[in-house]
């Protein structure tokens, strides 16, 4: 009898796996892996699949290159060594060009987020940007930041070991963490500290101040070559004496030290915890993150199998977990514009909103990056989020053309125009569709949330429940 029940349960589970994904599961999976509010079309695409096949499709759909054309930068990092000798006018021109490049790279990335067929790719790129933080104001060159951003995309769910090394020796990081200023006899500890604290082990986890001091000597001799603006190793500036790092002693260089760090089992745990907080919940479950960390180690830092296991996990799929994470400013803006099918004529306005909501891409607050979670919602950003949503809603509002707005003496909607019928016709066919499409959980306010009036869309957008994913 007992065996019969076991077999029966087994059959049910197998059946469950083969079943097509439910609407709510599809929505949740896309919301969490993408930008918080998937469009009806995105959901349609995975509805015929089983849950596992949907996860596979998202993971296999990663793009290693952006669809948005490479920005034309005005400056070249090769000009950097000549700054010292520039006269005032030349220097001013140089600085202005750099500043414009810094805007271009931001707009380029925002455009990519709006247009990408794989939101999960850009979500992971953003995850790495907030992991390997570089602030563009210090790095100066849009090109260098762009190079780093390309590394994030290339290794988004791939080999973390390669990602760590490529990003560390990239000029953006070298400048940001002063690695290029790290000389024999006068080591600069900034990079040595952050690599352990922020990139691999986590603050205070399994390393000491002594490890930082010792390893900073290993990174001496790293430079950016003035002729190529690429990484080079200068033996003359390197401290060749023995260093003791994490219990190992030898004449290590920087890459040796990174390899020693990567041998620590803690690294995979740190990554699993961080990815859990990003995609599942703010409170990592230790037995789950240990299990996922082992998958990372078993696959030698290839992250894809671990991500699949995480998205397949009970904790991720649990409906009780729906709506438990607050959308970031990037998710709120990009997700909403994609949901409403708005194509902003000026990306500047999207950037400006993200910045005002506390997430200026390429300019995180400090080396630790954006804190996220409840920190996104302060009294100030609460209000600005509503303002953004109302402005976006105007794009599916009373005007069909910019001229209509102008004729009424009003400004055309800042995020462009889209036809609201695209959403309304779904509600028309299936009353209640918009509510289950737009909200992860029940609304908070007492308003009209069903019906094909345009107002219903606004009510859903400005409800506090729209802020969570």
């Amino acid at each position: 009898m007992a065996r019969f029940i076991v077999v029966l349960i087994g059959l049910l589970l197998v059946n469950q796996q083969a079943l097509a994904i439910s609407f709510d599961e599809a929505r949740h999976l896309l919301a969490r892996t993408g930008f918080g509010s998937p469009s009806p079309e995105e959901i349609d695409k995975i509805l015929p699949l089983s849950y596992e096949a949907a996860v596979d499709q998202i993971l296999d759909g990663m793009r290693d290159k952006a669809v948005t054309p490479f920005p034309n930068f005005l400056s070249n990092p090769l000009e950097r060594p000549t700054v010292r000798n520039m006269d005032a006018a030349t220097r001013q021109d140089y600085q202005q060009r750099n500043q414009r490049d810094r805007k271009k790279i931001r707009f380029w990335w925002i455009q990519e987020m709006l247009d990408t067929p794989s939101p999960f790719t850009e979500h992971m790129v953003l995850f790495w940007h907030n992991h390997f933080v570089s602030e563009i104001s210090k790095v100066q060159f849009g090109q260098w930041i762009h190079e780093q951003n390309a590394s994030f995309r290339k290794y988004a769910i791939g080999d973390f070991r390669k990602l760590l090394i490529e990003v560390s020796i990239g000029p953006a990081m070298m400048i940001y963490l002063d690695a290029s200023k790290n000389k024999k006899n006068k080591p600069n500890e900034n990079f040595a500290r952050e690599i352990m604290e922020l990139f691999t082990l986590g603050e205070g986890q399994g390393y000491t101040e002594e490890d930082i001091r010792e390893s900073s000597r290993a990174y001496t001799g790293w430079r950016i070559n003035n002729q190529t603006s690429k990484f080079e190793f200068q033996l003359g500036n390197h401290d060749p004496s023995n260093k003791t790092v994490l219990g190992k002693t030898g004449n290590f260089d920087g890459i040796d030290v990174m390899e020693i760090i990567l041998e620590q089992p803690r690294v995979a745990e740190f990554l699993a915890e961080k990815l859990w907080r990003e995609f599942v919940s703010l409170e990592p479950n230790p037995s789950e993150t240990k299990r996922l960390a082992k998958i990372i180690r078993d696959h030698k830092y290839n992250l894809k199998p671990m991500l699949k296991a995480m998205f397949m996990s009970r904790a991720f799929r649990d409906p009780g977990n729906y709506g438990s994470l607050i959308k970031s400013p990037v998710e709120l803006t990009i997700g909403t514009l994609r949901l409403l099918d708005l194509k902003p004529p000026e990306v500047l306005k999207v950037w400006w909103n993200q910045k005002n909501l506390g997430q200026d891409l390429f300019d995180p607050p400090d080396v630790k990056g954006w804190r996220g979670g409840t920190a996104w919602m302060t009294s100030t950003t609460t209000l600005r989020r509503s303002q953004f949503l109302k402005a976006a809603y105007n794009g599916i509002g009373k005007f069909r053309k910019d001229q209509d707005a102008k004729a009424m003496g009003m400004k055309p909607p800042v995020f462009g125009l889209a036809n609201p019928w695209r959403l309304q016709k779904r509600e028309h066919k299936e009353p209640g569709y918009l509510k289950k499409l737009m909200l992860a959980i029940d609304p908070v306010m007492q308003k009209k949330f069903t019906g094909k009036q345009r107002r219903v869309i606004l009510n859903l957008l400005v409800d506090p429940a729209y802020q969570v994913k």
Partner: protein
Amino acid sequence: MKRRDFLKYSLILPTVTGSGLELLTSPVWAASGNWNRTLVLLELKGGNDGLNTVVPFTDKNYYDFRPTLAIPRDKVLKQTDKLGFNPAFAPLMPLWETKQMAVVLGVGYPNPNLSHFRGINIWNSGSDAETFIDSGWISRLLRESKPGRDFAADGINLGHNSLGPLGGDRTKVVTLIRKPEKFLKLASRIQPGNARMANPALAHIVKQRRDLRGAADNIVAKQIENVNVSGAFFDTKLGAQFETAARLLIAGVKAPVLKLTIGKFDTHAGQEPLHAELLSDIATNVAAFAKLMKAKGLWDNVTVMSYSEFGRRPFENNSSGTDHGTVAPHFLFGGKVKGGFYGEQSPLNDLDNQNLKYRVHFREIYASVAREWWGLNAGFIKEKPLGLFG
């Protein structure tokens, strides 16, 4: 659950472990704080270089350790036979000379942490280096006693920064940046909604809306638009924050804490002239703020207090900057502040792993603010007050 236990024990602990003598010397348990007194917190974000702020101008080590960064002896604003201020502090000298500026020397704590994130977390929460506490130290004080209903909020954040000492889910904080009028007008129209506490994310969002609406209604009623102090402050981000702070206080808006932030103190490379500019920004604006508060008869009810996640290394690095360190001096300004030096300069010939050893625990300053300024006795602060107020 754990945090609640911790709280419970921190309340019990002094009576369990404290000797009779300690009970006698501590002031009587205060039932409610004097929240009408305002603390203006000034966070120096990035880790201020203490040795170039209060300069040991007769110490040979100082000049040896800092071949390019040391402040030349003849430039130092000398106050004792050993210590003087960075010349950028000149605008503060009238406050110093009239004993309205306290300088606490050698501030730090045992087993210092040199990470920005962890360092500020320790200062924000008032925890030991080994303990992790999410709530800020002021939020923890507020559990002992809450301000009355006529207060706009527990704290008003005026800088682009985290809530720091005001952090924690139960503290009522509003952030007011840039044009406060426009913001308040919109905020007083928001409908908060009812939170279902089962979802912490949503509960947090609804709480923000509720606090925002409450604070907005309160501040709007005080008509801050009628208070104009433009031109009084430096045209910097910090100046704008001081301007809003002054306007709120003059209008009679009640909040125990106003939080201001000035950034860019993480001077790993090319420290000068940036560091001097930052100190000058502070000095000019604090002096202007004090002048305005005095003119309005509010200076006895306001204290400005600086803090930072750590100090910097006594040795300059090869990039004409300084790396993360431990100890730094901190500053208090106010009509009730008893001016002068407190604590002791950490000596340069007695270092711990190249870093200064602390002389005053930072919680001694918190103890002074809690007991002497607000009249609160908080269980989690075991350090004795410094006698900074009179």
